[in-house]
C-alpha cells in the first residue's frame, strides 16, 4: 500500500466515509464526516464573537487612537466609524465586555473537546514545513501528507489558537492591570499590555485573511464541511 493509500485508510478510521449514489444518474461520490458538531459550533460562535470583538475593539480604540502619551497626543490611525461597533466608547465597551465572555467560553469549550490535537503543531512537524511552503508558494511538488492536516495547516491553526489565548491574556491585563498585575507586569505594564492586545488582534486578522483565501481556493465542498460536517469528494480519497 502506498503512502496515499495508508493515508486514506487512516482517514477512514478517524472520520466516517460514505458513498452517495444519485438515483437518477447512478453516479457515486464519496463524502467524509470531517468536523464534529462541537467543532463547527465553536467555529461559528467564535467567528461571530471575533467579529464583534474586533468591531467594538476599534470603537474603543477610536477614543484614544494612539499608543503614545496623552499630552501631546499623536494619533496612530483614524479608524472609520463605519467599521466600528457600538456607536460610542460606552457602547463599544458594552459589546466588548459582553462578547469577551462568549469568546472565552467558546475557547474553553473547544480546547476542552480536545479536537485541536489533530491541528497541534509539534516539533516533529518542523521538518515537513519547508516542503509544504515550497509546494504552496513556489510551485514545488506536492508532498505526501500522512495526516489529516498538513504541517503548514497545523502551524497556522496552532498559532491562531495560541493567539486566541494571548488575546484573552492581554485583554485581561488591559481590563484588570491591578488585580492581574502579574500579567500586566509580564507584558511590560498596562501601557504595553494595551499595545500587545492590539498587536495580537492584527495577528489574528492576518490569519483570518489567509484563512479566507484558502476557503475561497478550496471551494464549495470544503466550505460546506464546516456547516454540515460532511465534505463531498475530499481530495485525500481516491475517486
Amino acid at each position, binding site marked *: 500500500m502506498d503512502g496515499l493509500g495508508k493515508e486514506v485508510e487512516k482517514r*477512514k478510521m478517524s472520520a*466516517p*466515509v*460514505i*458513498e*452517495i*449514489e*444519485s*438515483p437518477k444518474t447512478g453516479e*457515486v461520490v464519496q*463524502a467524509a464526516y470531517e468536523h464534529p*458538531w462541537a467543532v*463547527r*459550533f465553536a467555529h*461559528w*460562535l467564535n467567528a*461571530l*464573537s471575533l467579529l*464583534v470583538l474586533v468591531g467594538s475593539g476599534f470603537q*474603543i*480604540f477610536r*477614543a*484614544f487612537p*494612539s499608543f503614545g*502619551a*496623552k*499630552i501631546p*497626543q499623536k494619533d496612530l490611525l483614524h479608524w472609520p466609524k463605519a467599521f466600528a461597533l457600538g456607536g460610542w*466608547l*460606552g*457602547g463599544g*465597551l*458594552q*459589546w466588548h*465586555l*459582553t*462578547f*469577551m*465572555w*462568549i469568546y472565552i467560553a467558546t475557547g474553553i469549550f473547544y480546547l476542552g473537546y480536545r479536537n485541536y490535537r489533530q491541528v497541534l503543531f509539534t516539533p516533529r512537524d518542523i521538518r515537513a514545513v519547508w516542503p509544504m511552503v515550497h509546494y504552496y508558494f513556489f510551485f514545488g511538488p506536492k508532498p505526501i501528507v500522512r495526516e489529516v492536516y498538513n504541517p503548514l495547516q497545523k502551524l497556522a491553526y496552532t498559532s491562531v489558537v495560541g493567539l486566541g489565548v494571548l488575546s484573552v491574556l492581554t485583554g485581561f491585563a488591559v481590563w*484588570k*492591570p*491591578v*488585580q492581574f*498585575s502579574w500579567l500586566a*507586569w509580564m507584558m511590560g*505594564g*498596562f*501601557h504595553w499590555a*494595551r499595545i500587545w492586545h492590539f498587536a495580537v488582534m492584527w495577528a489574528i486578522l492576518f490569519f483570518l485573511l489567509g484563512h479566507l483565501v484558502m476557503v475561497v481556493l478550496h471551494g464549495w465542498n470544503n466550505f*460546506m464541511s464546516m*456547516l*454540515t*460536517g*460532511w465534505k463531498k469528494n475530499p481530495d485525500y480519497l481516491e475517486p
Partner: protein
Amino acid sequence: MDTRINSRKFKKVSRRELLKLAPVLAVGAFAIPKVQEPLLKAGLGFSDWASARLFRSRHLATTFTESELTPFEKFPINGYDVDDPGVDFDAWTLTVSGAVQKPGEYKLAQVQSLPRVRQNTRHVCVEGWDVIGRFGGARLSDFLQMIGADTTARFVSVECADDYYESLDMKTALHPQTLLCYEMYDQPLTREHGAPLRLQIPTKIGYKQAKYLTDLKVTNILDRVGYWEDQGYSSFYSL
C-alpha cells in the same frame, strides 16, 4: 466502514447536521434593537459582577519611583463639563450624610488632620491612555472612621461642584490606597485637578475618581450610580 446511501438521504443528513448549528443563531438576538439593549446591559452587569469578585481588598496597586512620574504639566485634565467650577475655597465644606454617626459639614483642615498618605500610582482613563502621578491625601477609610460611617453599608456616593456625581462600593472605599486627595506632586491640588478635594483611587478607572467634591454619603441604596455609568459605562470598573 463504507456505506452507500442515495443522494436524497445525504441531503437529509446534511440538513440535519446544519440545523444542529441553530444555537449559534441565538447570538442573532443581539441584532434585534429591542433585545440588544437589555442583553448588553446584562453582559456589562456580568462583567461588573466578575469585577467585584476579582477585587481583592488587600491587593495593592503598583507604586512607582519619582523618575517614572509623568511630568505634572503632562498630566491630562479631563473634566466632563468645565475645568474649573469656581469653588469658593473659604466657604467650602464637605457635606456628610447617610449612614454615619457624625453627619454634617467637614472642613478641609479636618480631612488634612488625618494621616497624610503620598503615593505614586498609575491613572488609567477609560479612553485608553495612562499616566503615573503623585498624589497626597487622607485615606478615605480613615475619614469614614472619623465620621463614624457604617462600613457594612454597601456604597459611598459623592457629589461634585460641577454636578458630576459618583459612587463606590464599600470594599474599594476601604482600600488602603483609596484617598481623599488634596495634593498632587506635593503641591495643593489645583482647580483643574479637582481642588479642594477629589477622589484618587488607583484600583479604579479614571471616571470614578471624582473631582471638586462637595457631598459624601454612606448608603445602601443608590438612586443613581454615576454621571457616566448612568449613560452606559461600567458601574464597578475596577482595574
